[in-house]
């Protein structure tokens, strides 16, 4: 041990403020690096669980989120002969000009 007393160790012969503030910054950086991964981990785990829950309730199809409360709406939408499909078929019959017009 180089210093004879506790107060001598803290004051560092006048340089205490500099030395200890430098070590404080180091503690902050080390602390940040230790804590940050755990915060991200919690977010990622929550994300995976939410995704699982949504899939179980049939609300997510290939990352596409449906806002309805139940899966009924979804089944309806993708059922054969649904309104959407009819619409598309009609458009194709009418030819490309009408599609362009409706896009505008």
């Amino acid at each position, binding site marked *: *041990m*180089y*210093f004879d007393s506790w107060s001598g*160790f803290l004051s*560092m*012969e*006048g*340089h*205490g403020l*500099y*030395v200890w*503030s*430098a*070590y404080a*910054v*180091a503690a902050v*950086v*080390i602390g*940040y*690096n*230790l804590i*940050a*991964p755990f915060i*991200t*981990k919690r977010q*990622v*785990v929550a*994300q*995976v*669980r939410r*995704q*699982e829950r949504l899939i179980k309730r049939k609300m997510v199809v290939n990352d596409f989120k449906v806002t309805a409360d139940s899966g009924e709406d979804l089944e309806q939408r993708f059922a054969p002969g649904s309104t959407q499909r009819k619409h598309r078929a009609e458009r194709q019959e009418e030819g490309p000009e009408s599609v362009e017009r409706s896009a505008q």
Partner: protein
Amino acid sequence: MNWTFFHKLGSPKWFYDISGKWLPWLQVSSLVLILVALVWGLAFTPPDYLQGNSYRIIFIHVPASFLAQAVYMMMATAAAVTLIWKIKLADMALKVMAPIGASFCILSLATGAIWGQPTWGTWWVWDARLTSMLILLFLYIGIIALRGAIHTTEAAAKACAILSLVGVVNIPIIKFSVDWWNTLHQGATLKLTEKPSMAPEMLWPLLLAILGFYLFFTLVMVLRLRIEILSRERKTRWVKELVS
């Protein structure tokens, strides 16, 4: 030559499993080494005959500066691996290393400024080494910002890889020109006097601290890498089973 180990290393699941076994060793060794080195350096080494006790900042300043530079080189290596072999794990490493390297760069600059006050009488000197470290921080910030701005993971990965490689080509040029500029502007002003080979009782804790900081960097990188793996592989069955 047998390359299977190389491709195995690129498998996120394999890495996740094996790195779980490294974690406890890394945690204990890095924290114990840093603690021993810093207590040794703070309390047991004699003061410097020129700088007094303020030189004790060296035990964090030098390891942080070493890491800040080494991490950028590792990022450039990971970038090359990403672009050549298209290994997903290399890109994940590239992503997680950037904030760690930037944090050590900030630590190096902050401790350097604090050390400058008692030694040079000023917080900041436009010294060549300080200026290059500041520019290195800018390079880190650029990579982090680019990653945040591109939303497709694939495109962000390759864009950051290209930027890291451009940066690594530029580092020697920047370093050289800053050195040149410094000699032009201020000849014999404040400069960290060239260390006359350090006394062994100071060198040993410094070497321990450097080793400890490197192990700590490995620890944080592995921690972040594991989380990044979970996040990117969240559609696979093994992650779903692991989490729930």
